[in-house]
């Protein structure tokens, strides 16, 4: 072992080289041992829940459990609402990212901080906030009510709650790409006579395309797993607002096997998302 060889050589070397009043270096356990043990604990901690899911899963009854109409209903509702939340986030989040990355205006840092707030805000708080913004007694409630729109406890409410929590993931990913892609190509396009709009459409967007896609996948994943804001703002109505995570939670009390089956489906979707993002995340960090 290298540490043993080092220990036998070091004392002689220090004796001859350092002054007598300097303390002799003590033998220390290798860094791998010091950091390796907690690293193993962390790894086990992260993996055990997954193992628990896989070990206890009712593999034999799985097809039957998943064929249950209420499960398929929750799955369909989850996929649809997460997709719509992602589409909505793309439509308004990419422009927001562009404004944050490319425009200089007073209070830009504050606006940026507010946009990122949902990332750290407890989702339940987001849900309560949405109730008092879009709910019947909310700020916009009377106006929405006047045109016959009621968002709480509706599927549209699910989409909004998910978008509220998930959109910041898209915005920071795209903003980072826009800020990081220097404007050299846009300058070149301008000298070739391209209008701002042509440059945005033919140069800027294609160049940040991979980041938009990654941000959208991330946004979709977060929307799919959304729980707190959804249950607070949209409730837990099977078929209308009961998404997969809510169904898992409810089933855990009444039908644990069904909860496990639903959890497995969500795990499978998560693995698919990780595979989709592998180019971006699964490579070891490299210096830029």
């Amino acid at each position, binding site marked *: 072992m290298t540490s043993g060889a080092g220990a036998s050589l070091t004392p002689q070397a220090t004796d001859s080289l350092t002054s007598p009043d300097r303390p002799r270096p003590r033998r220390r356990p290798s860094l791998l041992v010091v950091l390796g043990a907690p690293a193993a604990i962390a790894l086990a901690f992260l993996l055990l829940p997954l193992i628990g899911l896989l070990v206890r899963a009712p593999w034999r009854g799985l097809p039957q459990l998943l064929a249950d109409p209420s499960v398929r209903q929750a799955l369909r509702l989850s996929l649809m609402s997460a997709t719509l939340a992602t589409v909505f986030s793309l439509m308004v989040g990419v422009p927001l990212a562009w404004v944050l990355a490319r425009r200089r205006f007073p209070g830009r840092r504050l606006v940026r901080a507010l946009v990122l707030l949902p990332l750290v805000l407890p989702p339940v708080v987001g849900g309560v906030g949405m109730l008092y913004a879009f709910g019947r007694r909310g700020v916009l409630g009377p106006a929405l009510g006047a045109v016959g729109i009621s968002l709480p406890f509706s599927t549209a409410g699910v989409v909004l709650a998910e978008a509220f929590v998930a959109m910041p993931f898209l915005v920071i990913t795209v903003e980072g790409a826009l800020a990081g892609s220097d404007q*050299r190509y846009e*300058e070149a*396009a301008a*000298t*070739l006579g*391209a209008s*701002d709009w042509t440059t945005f459409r033919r140069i800027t967007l294609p*160049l940040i395309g991979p980041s938009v896609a990654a941000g959208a996948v991330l946004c979709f994943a977060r929307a799919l797993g959304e729980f707190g804001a959804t249950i607070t703002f949209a409730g837990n109505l099977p078929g209308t607002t009961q998404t997969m995570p809510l169904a898992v939670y409810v089933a855990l009390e009444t039908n644990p096997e069904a909860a496990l089956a639903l959890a497995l489906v969500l795990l499978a979707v998560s693995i698919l998302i990780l595979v989709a993002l592998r180019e971006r995340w699964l490579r070891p960090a490299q210096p830029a």
Partner: protein
Amino acid sequence: MSLQARLRVERAGFTLDADVHADAGEVLGVLGPNGAGKSTLLRALAGLVPLTAGRVELAGEVIEDPAVGRRLAPQDRRIGMVFQDYRLFPHLSARENVAFGLRSAGTPKADARSHADSWLARLGLTGLEGRRPNELSGGQAQRVALARALSAFPRLLLMDEPLAALDVATRAAVRSELRGQLALFPGPALLVTHDSLDALTLADRLLILDDGRVIQAGPAAAIAQRPGSPYVAKLVGLNLLRGTAAAGVIQVDGGGLLVTGDSSLTGPALAVLRPSSVLLQTTAPHPSSARNVWPGRLAALETIGDRVRVTIASAPQLLADVTPQAVAEMRLSAGDDVWVSVKATDIDTYPDIYPGLDPEVDESGGART
């Protein structure tokens, strides 16, 4: 179609203050050290940096004048720019890169593409139309960048160190080609460089920039003979001889033979020689290792700092740099007869690919006199 500009750009810790003039068909070389403001000058003309004060007039149209609030956006200027790093759009093919300007101007896709293909063919890039920038060599990318800038019918062509990113061998070939293309370009062109060879081979006139100011401007030969400062002397001090090479000897246009030792070169050639490599003697030298020895007459002496730049009327005509002490000891003065010696190994040679396209070739016996 000429350019007349007075540029003032103020930024934290730096001010550019320069008058720039270039006629139609003229190539103005902009030289200077790093940080002199060369790139800022080009960017100001292109509209990528706003003027603090001044006025830019191109082809009779005022395109920027802060005093009257006039400022044409970069995309409305029709000023082509070749960037030092080329800036080819990485997601578009060579053809789409070149077609980009025309398509932005509303030309139908098919027309723009066939126009782009003809430009690529003009620059010898046929067969590479479908390649992405990352599949092109440095020389090819430079040509695509030039084709892209020229294909949008610019009224003014700006080039920022167009050859700096190329290796030595590619550089000589692209330089010759660039000279050919510049000869065909009808508008004024500005070429930023810090390479005196590029400046002397490609530019008709030079503008020397230092610390944001023009320290000297004029025809290259005049600046080389009377550099305003030691810095300019070093920058523009190159003897550039054009001629025809055969068997290691160049027959210099305008008279004289130059032994170069480079027997691989045949046909139109450029010989480049530093003034500091030219040896002067007042008497005929004994046999020496210098392969080139010929008589001449001192046409002019100019003291610049710690050196004296001497113009020697001979065949071929040369510039030589000597110390003031040597001038004093040899009692050199204008009109004296001297002997010139040059070692063959001090001469750099390059093929001169497009000699027919440059109208100045025939008269350039010496350093473009």
